[in-house]
């Protein structure tokens, strides 16, 4: 049984302009010890998905209108706030993008760690402090015992992210949700943080749900990938399979639009730009949501029909009337 099983999750935001269908029927599961990456551009709904799982969306104006979030068999959407608080931190932990604002600047980090520990476990302050030092050492912060009494502003961005990871892992959660964990960091620090996450995940056999817009990060850490567009998954496949055989026109376009670091003829070439802009989530088109930007839109009347996710290759789901394998030309692996 999967550790996390999200079934047809729908989260809408009710605003003056109408209902923003931020997450519109998303289903996936994360197994113990595996990493699922949700990738998409800004506004596609990936962060809202993560927050919905944790019950951290502001209600109102948001509301989970449909679907279930099964964690170990329990439906989190049906729990009360009090019960959810017991789950948060202890069973499922989350780390956020901006380490500047996710740590409270007025508390020492030692306090922030011990506070979490003592919320979920009945231990003394002294024991909590010892555990905190252990945790800081585990995430690679030198001179941990002394650093416990420092404030967040005394750490660099990468260090702060490590502290956040320490807090997140303090209560041994079984699932870690990371929302753009490295976007605000320098690239060398990013690599270190990703390595750290991977090591900790393996050591503790944790499941990891990583949300990002960066395909490179996905390639680095994800076992399975889901591509999100306008509130829905448009493709879902194991990572290697996705990069080798992208099926959905959006995924193909996204990969084509990425500036390449390795290869030849890059300077002279042009990037494959995707025309237009993602749709307004309040005013979604009736049929296929990607149609206005899709190069295969004119082939038939597929634009007017909303597409379903279907399996086009083993383990590979696509929401498109014209997935690459149906288009007939030979697929080449992305690696050059």
């Amino acid at each position, binding site marked *: 049984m999967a550790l996390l099983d999200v079934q047809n999750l729908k989260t809408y935001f009710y605003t003056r302009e109408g209902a923003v269908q931020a997450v519109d029927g998303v289903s996936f599961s994360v197994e113990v010890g595996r990493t699922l990456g949700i990738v998409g551009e800004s506004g596609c709904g990936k962060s809202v998905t993560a927050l919905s799982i944790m019950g951290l969306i502001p209600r109102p104006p948001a509301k989970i209108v449909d679907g279930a979030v099964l964690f170990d068999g329990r439906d989190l959407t049906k729990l009360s706030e009090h019960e959810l608080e017991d789950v948060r931190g202890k069973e499922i932990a989350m780390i956020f993008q901006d380490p500047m604002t996710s740590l409270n600047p007025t508390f020492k980090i030692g306090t922030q760690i011990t506070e979490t520990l003592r919320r979920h476990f009945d231990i003394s302050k002294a024991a909590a402090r010892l555990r905190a030092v252990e945790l800081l050492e585990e995430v690679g912060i030198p001179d941990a015992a002394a650093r416990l009494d420092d404030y967040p502003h005394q750490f660099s961005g990468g260090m702060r992210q490590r502290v956040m990871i320490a807090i997140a892992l303090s209560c041994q959660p079984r699932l870690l949700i990371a929302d753009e964990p490295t976007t605000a960091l320098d690239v060398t620090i990013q690599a270190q943080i990703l390595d750290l996450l991977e090591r900790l995940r393996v050591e503790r056999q944790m499941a990891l749900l990583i949300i990002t817009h960066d395909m490179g990060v996905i390639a680095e850490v994800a076992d399975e990938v889901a591509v999100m567009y306008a509130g829905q998954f448009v493709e879902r496949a194991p990572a290697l399979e996705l990069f080798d055989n992208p099926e959905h026109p959006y995924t193909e376009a996204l990969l084509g639009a990425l500036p390449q670091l390795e290869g030849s003829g890059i300077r002279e070439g042009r990037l494959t*730009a995707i*025309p*237009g*802009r993602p749709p*307004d989530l309040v005013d979604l088109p009736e049929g296929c949501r990607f149609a206005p930007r899709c190069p295969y839109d004119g082939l038939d009347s597929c634009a007017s029909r909303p597409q379903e996710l279907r399996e086009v290759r083993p383990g590979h789901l696509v929401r498109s009337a014209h997935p690459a394998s149906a288009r007939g030309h030979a697929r080449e692996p992305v690696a050059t």
Partner: protein
Amino acid sequence: MAVNPRQATTLQPQTAAPPLAETAGAPIRQSSLWRDAYRRYLRNKGAVASAVVFLIIVLYCLFIPGFWFIPGIWTTLFDIDPNQVNFAEARLPPSFEHPFGTDQFGRDLFTRVAKGGQVSIGIGFAATIAILLIGVTYGSISGFVGGTLDNAMMRFLDALYGLPYLPFAILALAIIGTVNFWTMVLALTIASWFTAARIVRGQVISLKENDYVRAAHAVGARWHRVLTRHLLPNTLGVLIIATFLELPAVVLGEAFLSFIGLGINPPDPSWGSLASEARQGYRTHPLDLWIPCLFIAALVLCANFIADGLRDALDPRTRET
């Protein structure tokens, strides 16, 4: 392929510009910043109610006794002169002709309170405008120039802050000598321009960091253009809010000074002097004291609520980016 730089300036690209269909053409949201703010303001019931009450008070003060060349509603209707003493009509209870009754000198309080309001609110607005003008000038120069000049200007301001508001105003009045509408405006302005200066300076300093200011410098705009074209228009929101915060302070200041007898001289009324006159007969005729005080309180409260509502409406955090 070598491109002749001269040719480059005539904007004839060698390939066609990308078709507009390929690029996002239309605006993604069509709205005006002011209209958004207006709508947000309307959602705040307290602010809307305050604005209405404020307006009613102002209209009352203007049109009941008349102003300028416009005759007052009440004064023409009942042929009343607010300053006319008439002992025969002294201490009349409230009636249709005299909704607030008459005072110990037989003067109709309804029109007197309105006339007093003209003075109090008038001084309030005049002083507020003066405060903003001085504050904007001082604050924008200080914030814009920065460095040692800013430092010096702010230390000077800090020193002035130490002086208590009302005694300072009284001192200013004493130095000026005479007491009339404009000297009161002057005194109250002198005593309270610092806050506005500080607010504007803060705004200018934070606005200076925006890239569009750097862009203006990069293009070669001179300092006065940057200041007037880019910085000051963007402080407008803050200035409007500051207006509605300064106004009650000045009105209260004027009321206090008039109350203790250092303000507008009789027989011209102001809310403060009306309260002062009513003080002696308070036990037997409490209404004469209560009414001007309630008007002062109402105006101050409304102005504060309006300022609050404006701040929420113009708050850049909730503004769409």
